[in-house]
């Protein structure tokens, strides 16, 4: 079992997923998960009962505005993401339990070094304009994302691909050479912003292989899509039409659901959850996710450069109280480690609890008996400001003064972004190595804690090129131990994703990715 992308594993996790789905939609028997090779994907995603065709699925999505886009590779807001999921497919995708499964790829296998990955494309897939999918389109997509003049969202993650070393073996086989060995190319290619577009793609006429075809788009307003009759996932999509409606305001989005103007909304504001639950015609879809909103301490700036101060601040947090007060209980406590769904997550490291005596003693040793720090907070994600307030109050119990500096998101992302000594951030579900690449290496684009531990770097670099799973597990465990002991993050929880829909809508299941509405799985939703 060398490849991280092992179809047997996928199949097993699919069964788990199917069980999860059964719980969510009422325990009705599911289609067999073993209905032949092409049945693997659809069986996992098929809802209970027999799906009905037809109807216009109206979806209210949080955010959006004049800067909205339908470009496959430039999604920023939630409506952008939703449109990308409707129009495009990536080579690989994720099951609701966050395991990887093939999408447009049939397989993607690393060489033993792992410097080259071999891609086998699914046969018989066509784009919305009827053009058959070949590896030329895949190469074009990589070139478009990595265009140095206009780098796209996934450019940093996919920069490991060596464009010069893309070798077409035949129409459906591509050898992808990397600049340096990596075992996580497959993980990067599951990203929704790495959707495959046809060679010569023009975002003004968006064409993909996704479950829905483009019909119209008005930025900040709504976009309309129609079913793709030749979609490669058999049976899907079920709805004839999909209408994605932008809602910059939370109140308006919930009101639209309550009054029956939309069928589905993402991200119910927790304050309005009771109103939604009280309505017999509505259902709440709650998913555990790996999304986190940490406090970030710069390990190279006083007083946080003293590891005892970082440890003390971590010990000040009453994590369960934070979850209860900030997330109204819709979350799970964290252990200052990220990537809880990674198969190599260090589950056995002891859970950190509030320990004021220990914290005070550490601060005394560090010469900060009456520590005063400034915490920069901003409404950049749901719950950040509330978390800062609760943290400040909890810190008071140990005699630590946390002064809150609340700034507008424009200031937060302004010139001091990634330079604040003590601030916050938000992250979605990711596996360990991809997350490290994003935020825990000196070369990462978002290293807000300025973390650059030499031993840690050595461990994760070696792990990134180690195909042997047992060896990699050990390396990653050691790396996580270092972060758990002395890292700059306070990771107090993983936030649940809470969406809602009319009881007429079927096919949604809890999804660990943190992407709302079963990863905006519009193809799988059907109207009863």
């Amino acid at each position, binding site marked *: 079992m060398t490849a991280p992308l092992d179809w047997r594993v996928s199949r097993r996790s699919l069964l788990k997923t199917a069980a999860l789905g059964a719980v969510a939609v009422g325990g009705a028997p599911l289609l067999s998960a073993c209905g032949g090779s092409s049945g693997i994907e659809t069986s996992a995603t098929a809802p209970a009962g027999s799906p009905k065709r037809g109807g216009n699925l109206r979806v209210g999505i949080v955010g959006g*505005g*004049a800067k909205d886009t339908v470009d496959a590779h430039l999604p920023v807001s939630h409506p952008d993401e939703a449109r990308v999921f409707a129009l495009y497919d990536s080579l690989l995708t994720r099951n609701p339990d966050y395991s990887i499964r093939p999408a447009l790829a049939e397989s993607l296998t690393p060489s033993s070094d792992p410097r080259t990955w071999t891609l086998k494309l699914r046969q018989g897939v066509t784009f919305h304009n009827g053009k058959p999918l070949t590896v030329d389109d895949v190469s074009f997509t990589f070139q478009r994302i990595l265009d140095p003049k206009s780098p796209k*969202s996934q450019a940093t993650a996919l920069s490991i691909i060596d464009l010069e070393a893309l070798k077409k073996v035949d129409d459906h086989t591509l050898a992808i050479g990397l600049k340096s060995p990596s075992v996580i190319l497959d993980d990067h290619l599951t990203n929704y912003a790495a959707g495959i577009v046809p060679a010569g793609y023009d975002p003004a006429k968006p064409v993909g292989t996704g479950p829905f075809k483009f019909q119209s788009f008005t930025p900040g307003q709504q976009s309309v899509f129609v079913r793709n009759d030749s979609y490669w996932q058999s049976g899907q999509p079920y709805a004839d039409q999909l209408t994605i409606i932008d809602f910059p305001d939370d109140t308006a989005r919930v009101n639209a659901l309550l009054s029956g103007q939309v069928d589905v909304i993402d991200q119910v504001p927790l304050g309005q959850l009771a109103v939604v639950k009280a309505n017999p015609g509505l259902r709440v879809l709650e998913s555990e996710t790996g999304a986190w909103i940490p406090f970030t301490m710069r390990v190279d700036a006083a007083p946080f450069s003293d590891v005892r101060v970082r440890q003390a601040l971590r010990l000040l947090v009453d994590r369960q109280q934070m979850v209860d007060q900030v997330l109204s209980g819709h979350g799970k406590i964290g252990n200052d480690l990220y990537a809880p769904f990674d198969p190599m997550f260090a589950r056995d490291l002891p859970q950190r609890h509030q320990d004021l005596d220990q914290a005070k003693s550490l601060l005394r040793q560090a010469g900060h008996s009456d520590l005063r720090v400034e915490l920069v907070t901003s409404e950049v994600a749901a719950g950040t400001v509330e978390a800062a307030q609760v943290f400040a109050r909890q810190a008071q119990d140990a005699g630590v003064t946390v002064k809150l500096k609340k700034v507008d998101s424009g200031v937060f992302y302004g010139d001091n972004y990634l330079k604040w000594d003590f601030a916050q951030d938000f992250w979605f579900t990711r596996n360990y190595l991809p997350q490290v690449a994003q935020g825990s290496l000196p070369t990462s684009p978002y290293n807000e804690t300025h973390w650059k531990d030499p031993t840690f770097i050595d461990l994760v670099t070696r792990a990134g090129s180690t195909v042997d799973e047992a060896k990699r597990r050990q390396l990653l465990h050691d790396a996580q131990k270092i972060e758990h002991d002395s890292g700059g993050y306070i990771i107090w929880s993983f936030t649940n994703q809470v969406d809602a829909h009319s009881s007429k809508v079927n096919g949604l299941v809890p999804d660990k990715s943190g992407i709302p509405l079963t990863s905006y799985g519009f193809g799988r939703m059907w109207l009863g």
Partner: protein
Amino acid sequence: MLRLLLRRLLLGLLTLWLVSLVLFVLTQALPGDAARAILGREATPERLAALRQQLHLDQSPAAQYLHWLRGAVRGDFGRSLADQQPVSRLLGDRLVNSLVLMAAAALVSTVLGVAAGTWSALRRDRFADHATSVVTLVLAALPEFVIGIALVVLLSTTVFRVFPAVTLATPGHPVWTRLDVLVLPVLTMTLAVAPYITRMLRASMIEVLDSEYVQMARLKGMPERTVIVRHALPNALGPVAQVIALQLAWLAGGVVVIEYLFRYPGIGQALVDAVANRDVPMVQAITVVIAAIYVAVNLLADMVQILGNARLRTSLR
């Protein structure tokens, strides 16, 4: 009279220019720029640099303003930074939508306010008058956001389901093809504005009703209806015109909040978005339009007041 109006018009244009200048300075003072706002967390240095160049943000602020002003004078408000379309094209439909909303609200609240004020004045110190006074006072004290949410709960989500809670009109189709979406926003704005008009008109009306010429008209045996409509109302309206104008001008600004709440596709919603995006050309265009409505409505009020006041009217001749 013509000279006065011309002077007012020039003053209005000067106001608009000052508004645009102050706004430009203010938007420059906002932290971050359009490129950063558009990219958000995706703002890697490479992508920022590429976008800044694309949006001409690398030019100096003065050059950017002059460029904008040159275009604006010729009626060209430039291109939106957020989606690269000409501002005039982006605002066209939205402006019409907002004007429809404002005009409907202005008409309803003026008629309602004048009627309720007159009615209340005619029943001075009776129960109906006191009741009107209390109701208008309460409504005037409530923020329009609260009124709007209460109306949504009452008329579209929880108690009754009569009107749509939000506007989901198909883009490109004028809003007046779906009149039901206008009801709640117009009602909200009316409830926010009409109380002031009612109260002012009542006070003004009472004064007029006590005046000698009304008593004279009554003594002459004119029907009460004629006395009120022909003699009292025009004279009561004059002093209230300024208040009505101020309220209607307020509608132009209040529409921002209302449109946000009801997801109404007008300039208010666009303004909120444009500010968040640091989309200077859009912010400039929308605020100048709102300011222009302000100036125009006040100009109109001046004219009504002049025409309604015999002494002013004759002194101008």
